[in-house]
């Protein structure tokens, strides 16, 4: 299909979005990522039954943690699609990219780190 999506998106493969943990998403933001999003299978079609549902819960939890810290919750999002939906994957990548451009860079990058 040779579909284009923003080059700022770095893909990390996991066996199932159910493998994605709170600390993975939080560490990405802590290390300076402007945003993180999980792309899981459509709800109800998880090969492991509930992996993508668990991921959504964790994404929601991380969003609440970011708000507590003082960062925008929308830096972390969850999307769902089927493996046959290449154009939707590219569309979601563009949507997330635009969302992050609107929010601006991760403010943590400008601050001096502790240790």
């Amino acid at each position, binding site marked *: 299909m040779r579909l284009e999506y923003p080059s700022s998106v770095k893909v990390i493969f996991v066996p199932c979005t159910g493998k994605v*943990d*709170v*600390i993975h998403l*939080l*560490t990405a*933001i*802590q290390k300076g990522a402007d945003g993180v999003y999980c792309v899981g299978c459509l709800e109800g079609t998880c090969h492991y039954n509930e992996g993508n549902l668990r991921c959504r819960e964790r994404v929601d939890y991380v969003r609440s*943690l970011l708000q*507590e*810290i*003082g*960062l925008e919750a929308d830096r972390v999002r969850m999307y769902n699609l089927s493996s046959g939906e290449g154009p939707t994957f590219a569309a979601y990548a563009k949507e997330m990219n635009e969302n992050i451009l609107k929010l601006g860079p991760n*403010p*943590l990058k400008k*601050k*001096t*780190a*502790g*240790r």
Partner: protein
Amino acid sequence: MIVAKRKPFDEIMQLLKGHRKILVVGCGTCVAVCLAGGEKEVAVLTAELEMARRLAENPVELGSATLERQCDREYLAQLDGKVDAYDALISMACGVGIQFLAERFPHKPVYPAVDTAGLAVNQDVGWYEERCRSCGRCVLGLTGGICPVTMCAKGLYNGPCGGTNKGSCEINADQPCAWNAIYERLKAQGRLDCILDLQPPHDWKDMTPRSLIQPGYKKPEKAKA
């Protein structure tokens, strides 16, 4: 097991506001199983604190350690050489572990990161229900294995009260009446006579700090030394 709930982040931030070097101490037993204060939760809290303080331009130096248990001296001893490098400790253990940690390092401020929420069963992953208040006088043998102290809103040893309502408690229609459940279970077992075995009022003076030495562990030789 003992269950606990993470304190609100704002409260934790408030507790730690004057400190710049903090050690986050997790516990690998009960609070790890109930997903409140194990290694994973220590990592999440550490990351949150680091980011929040960095954003507030008040950076903090953080360390983390998760002990097997905070209610045993031999595990606490693993921190002996470590705590001097920090201004304060924040513990993710239950109230017992937090106090034992504070007792071990009396010169350091020790803060709680969780609220201890009771002795509970695991209904599903992440879902816990209280079953015991550790009252010190167990009557489960007479109540069909249902604790009236925990499961009855009034903690009645001899029930039910006048608020029982078709199997529900007067505090909430979704809350089963413990004494109705006790009656039904004893009836099914043909042991309704147990309900007539009236219990005297609980001696709440027993609720002063208790200590316990199991038979065979009195170690008189240590008392002499």
